[in-house]
């Protein structure tokens, strides 16, 4: 809502009447990111989130915007191996980080990550919009190693909303990969 936006913005937005004026845009800041294995030098304004940078400047639209407030998990990416909501991370604060998005999970030859395969096999999505976030979150969950049971998976996957209601299949998909990894 417009009036609410206004209040939250007064903190950093230049005042309309100021000398520098509303017309001044914040300066761009140079940063370096390694995205899906590719090191990139970028110039970004401090108000740009990692999510918007990925989508709008790097055309990595696989990372989804569902709420822009860290409430839905659709924008989950791996930052230095940890799952994070990229909408809550201003890009400039991630200078020097390694980012993996859904586009970076499959092998260069096109072989899918086992969890991507499992999502297809278990029909762990319908509309597909939350799916990249679910998969990134699931990949990190598998690495974190603190979820062992279906109930623990449910708990640790509850930051990723799925409005189509594919939850039980998401749990099945993660469990199937977990079982294979344990068997190794």
């Amino acid at each position, binding site marked *: *809502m*417009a009036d*609410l*936006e*206004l209040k939250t913005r007064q903190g950093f*937005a230049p005042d*309309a009447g100021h000398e520098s004026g*509303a017309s001044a*845009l914040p300066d761009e800041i140079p940063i370096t990111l390694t995205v899906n294995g590719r090191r990139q030098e970028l110039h970004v*304004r401090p*108000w740009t989130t990692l999510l*918007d940078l990925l989508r*709008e400047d790097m055309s990595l*639209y*696989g*990372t*989804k*915007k*569902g*709420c*822009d*407030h860290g*409430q*839905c998990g*659709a924008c989950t990416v791996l930052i230095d191996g940890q799952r994070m909501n990229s909408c809550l991370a201003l890009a400039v604060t991630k200078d020097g980080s390694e980012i993996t*998005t*859904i*586009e970076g*999970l499959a092998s260069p030859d096109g072989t*899918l990550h086992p969890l*991507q395969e499992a*999502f*297809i*096999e278990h*029909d762990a*999505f*319908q*509309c*597909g*919009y939350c*799916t*990249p976030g679910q998969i990134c979150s699931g990949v990190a969950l598998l690495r974190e190693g603190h979820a062992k049971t279906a109930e623990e*998976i*449910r*708990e640790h*996957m*509850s*930051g*990723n*909303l*799925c*409005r*189509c*209601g*594919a*939850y*039980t*299949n*998401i*749990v099945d998909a993660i469990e199937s990969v977990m079982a294979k990894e344990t068997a190794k």
Partner: protein
Amino acid sequence: MYETHVGSPRNRVDGRKKVTGTAPYAAEFTAPDLAQGYVVNSAIAKGRITAIDTKDALAVPGVIQVFTHQNRPRTAWRSTAYQDEVAPPGKPFRPLYDERIHYSGQPIALVVAEDFEIARYAASLVRVSYEAEQHQTDLTKVREQAYTPKYRTSMGPPSPRGDAEAAFGRSPVKVEGSYRIAVEHHNPMEPHASTVVWEGDGKITVHDKIQGCQNTQRYIRQVFGLSASDVHVISPYVGGAFGSGLRPQYQLFLAVMAALELKRSVRVVLTRDQMFTFTYRPDGLQEVAMAANEDGALQAIRHDLIGNTSTFEDYTEQTVGWSGMTYHCENYKGTYKVAQLDTYTPGDMRAPGAPTGLFPSESAVDELCHKLGMDPLKFRLKNYNQVDEATGKPFTSKELRAALQLGAERFGWSKRNHKPRSMKEGNELIGWGMAVGMWEAAMQKTAARAVLTIDGKLEVASASADIGTGTYTIMAQIAADALGLPIEKVTALLGDSSLPSAPVEGGSWGAASTGTAVELACHAVREKLFGYARGINDSPLGAAGVNEVQFREGRIALISDPSRFVTIQDAMVAGGVDRIEAEETASPSKITMLKYSSYAHSAAFVEVRVDEELGVVRVTRVVQAIAAGRILNPKTARSQILGGTVFGIGMALHEESMADHNLGRFMNHNIAEYHIPVNADVPNIDVIFVDEHDDLTSPIGVKGLGEIGICASPAAIANAVFHATGKRIRELPITIDKILGTKEAA
């Protein structure tokens, strides 16, 4: 053994794109020089804009234009031009039309800038002055002003039968109650968005979040006075919609307006907050009364509703009819009125009206059973009907009895002690509840095209949509079977306005309609192909008719002797063609519509655990038994039921758009405060598809699955809560305060 694709579990054909993030949604199409729009919304619920100052916004470097009612380009002035394919009766809302404010959150300006952040920042600098008028957003305050609306087609209450009042009066066992379900917002994970690509020379390509690309195309043509060849809509992926994408929403109007005016590509994406500034599942004040004889024979049903609509359209849905159709009952009366509120027009949300009407009526059945001391399963079997008593027509098929029996068996219902509060484990009371559901099995006129090429590839296409339902996949399955090709050789296309005509995908009619059209088109291709195969000199098929051959593994072979065959390639070579194309239109059977009623049915069995001290309810087990005709793909079909069930859990326990009537606004306009079920809220859900043969509803025997999963689940959960606690809660969602604040029933 040869396994057909239809009827077998198949992975989604669009799966790889979705798990790799390469399926493009509406906001993910791009164009050179793409400008970004950001919407400014009204802060008041009713009144007028007295001034709108865009000077500061325009001064921000990178801002291209700020559109308001004062400088918007001319569009169609007649409100009928804004009526889309599924608009309810009335005058649709026209964005930026004039200074009038009709509801809080109404779009009042669009800031267009070189990038998203600049547009968002500049939008915060738009200063608006209003002259507010007294608004009304509280349905309870306008009960007295409720009127009989102009109903949407088949959305009116069914005709009364018998004498419900008299029968209620003389029956020995009766229940009466007032019910209400909180307003819900669809909240698909993908926010509504439109990317409009300026192609030059007045032509645009539009990527819209919509359940029917041709609905978007028609709307743009009518509103902006463009010809069909000027507007191409391409929306191959929709990130959920659940009804919110049936009608074109305001971001489409704004994006198209800006693109045409600026002669430049423009994208407008709504924020999650703004997802609460258009349609929603309506509020409703319901009264349900039921009466039975001592033996449990249902005698009377009364079901009355006052729903809300906006000040500009009459929105209605089928809500009070369900109670009169689920059971045999000679005396029924339902009424449906609406009252106007200063809000946007409510809209269809997953099974519009069905869980809404079934929550009170199936709660009343449960209450009646409690009074009778009768097993709710027995009651439902005793009052079973085979005829739609609202119309007197028989059902095309109804295997609800089998669903009830199989579901009860799987759940272990026979072990239920029917006394409330009879099960406890630790701090938790355990309750088992059940309910039945219904949803209309419809089919809509839909066209499809099939193209077979000599390389053995088949393409099927229809302007339909796949909103996560699995339309792509069932199209490919049907086509692969029709011509006996591996599914990998089939490409399914949809979501493109240049493809053969299809209506919006909704009402659970997608599979029956698009599926039938695809099958017809493929059969037409098959006929031609067979003709070529027969035309070969000394054809191995001899004088066989098309019904005496099978199309399998790229061959046309005699059923009686599959060693005698012609390959597809040989047939096409013989025919001198390298492609065979056919387009066919599928229409619902007029005879079926005249003589029968067609519905999908469900029986839901639910276990809940209630911590009475904390007031927390958890659903721990669900069995959904579904009778919905032929199941094309058990894997994706099951997912539809899972999704419907989760939506039902949301309605029963979580979802609630809370209005502050002083401000006339929904206050919890984000998904931290508007709760939808998360993974930890959803237990194992056991889905059973009951065998049900039905060749009357649609030629391919399909009834549709998108909505039936939600229909019974909220009532089953509420009934389980009653069984656990002895508390009859008549307002959804069943939140902590209601568990703590409700007394046990006598």
